């Protein structure tokens, strides 16, 4: 963002850049920057909280009156303690002929459709795997976890993008099942630790690493600190 801010100012447009990582926004010194110490993915802080978002914008736009370059920190921080996890029921076993992860993915379809109807689809399936094909995509990672080389497992695209669509499908469905707005990262923690599909992707990631596959192929299947 800071690179673009420098370029846009050179072109005659005044800019204000929000930044979630203090070292980055301070280190790159944009013409006007506001460090918002919020979790990654939430630069305005709190979803569905217009008052909070307006406080962020008021501080940001206030920097436009500065007569010189300025970087400030927003007064409020939002912490993630690394423990909050979404709480929602997973579908019961329906078709025992399927792998549990595939059965689970199929069972979430109605919840996924309800969430998309209510919220739209901004981070769910569809970047490379359609919602109708999520079960097959999960099955491809089951094969990898069980030892099939990833290039022979039928993964329908670049593995990281396919995993992203599966995770997005689950997190979107969870928004229809949960009774609460999830805390930051609570959806990701729920997916990777509580669901059959998430655990399958983690197992496939480990299998690919153990097989000596190139690091970018498996590393980006999950957040980098996992």
């Amino acid at each position, binding site marked *: *963002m800071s*690179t673009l801010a*420098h*370029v*846009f*100012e050179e072109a*005659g*447009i*005044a*800019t*204000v850049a*929000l*930044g*979630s990582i203090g*070292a*980055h926004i301070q280190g*790159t010194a944009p*013409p006007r920057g506001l460090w918002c110490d919020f*979790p*990654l*993915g*939430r*630069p*305005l802080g*709190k*979803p*569905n909280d*217009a008052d909070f*978002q*307006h406080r962020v*914008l008021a501080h940001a*736009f206030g920097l*436009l009156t500065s007569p010189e*370059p300025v970087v400030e920190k927003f007064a409020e921080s939002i*912490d*993630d303690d*690394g423990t909050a996890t979404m709480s929602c029921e997973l579908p019961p076993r329906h078709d025992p002929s399927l792998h549990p992860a595939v059965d689970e993915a199929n069972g979430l379809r109605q919840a996924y459709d309800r969430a998309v109807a209510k919220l*739209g689809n*901004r*981070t769910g399936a*569809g*970047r490379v795997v359609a919602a109708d094909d999520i079960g097959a995509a999960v099955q491809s990672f089951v094969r990898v976890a069980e030892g099939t080389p990833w290039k022979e497992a039928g993964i329908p695209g*670049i593995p990281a*993008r396919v995993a992203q669509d599966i*995770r*997005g499908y689950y*997190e*979107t469905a*969870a*928004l229809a099942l949960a009774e609460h707005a*999830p805390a*930051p*990262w609570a*959806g990701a923690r729920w997916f*990777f630790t509580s669901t059959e599909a998430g655990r399958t992707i983690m197992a496939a990631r480990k299998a690919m690493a153990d097989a000596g596959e190139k690091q970018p192929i498996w590393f*980006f299947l999950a*957040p*980098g*600190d*996992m």
Partner: protein
Amino acid sequence: MADSDVKALTGGLELPDFETTAFTTPPPLAEAKVAIVTSASLHHPDQDDFEPIDTGYRVLDGSRRDYMCGHWSPNFDATGIALDLNTVFPIDRLDELAADGTIGEVSDIHLSYAGNQFDLSGVRMDSGPAGAKFLRDHEVDVVLFTPV
């Protein structure tokens, strides 16, 4: 998994260096046309998705709300923007600020880039200046940059 641990992974990234800081004095905010430029790889469903290495930009229609997040990184919480577009792209908040006169006007077009680029030379030399010119041609005075 914790946000602080994910942020710590970026500690070794080389940051771009600028010898000088360009600085444009804007008109009063109440008279300014404001646009959002995000690095969240947002695009409309009928536009091309972003590639893993993609220094281009997409033009976003401010009258639409059918945005998809095409960012490739797994290293951010996705449920915030899934619940509320304004968590990343505060278009409704800008419309409210225009309605109450805080800002002069909200641009009817906005831009989206892909933030997960390791080689920034294309952005710095090509798509960045092109995007800035595009917004200048639409008489945009102020840009709010939002990451993801």
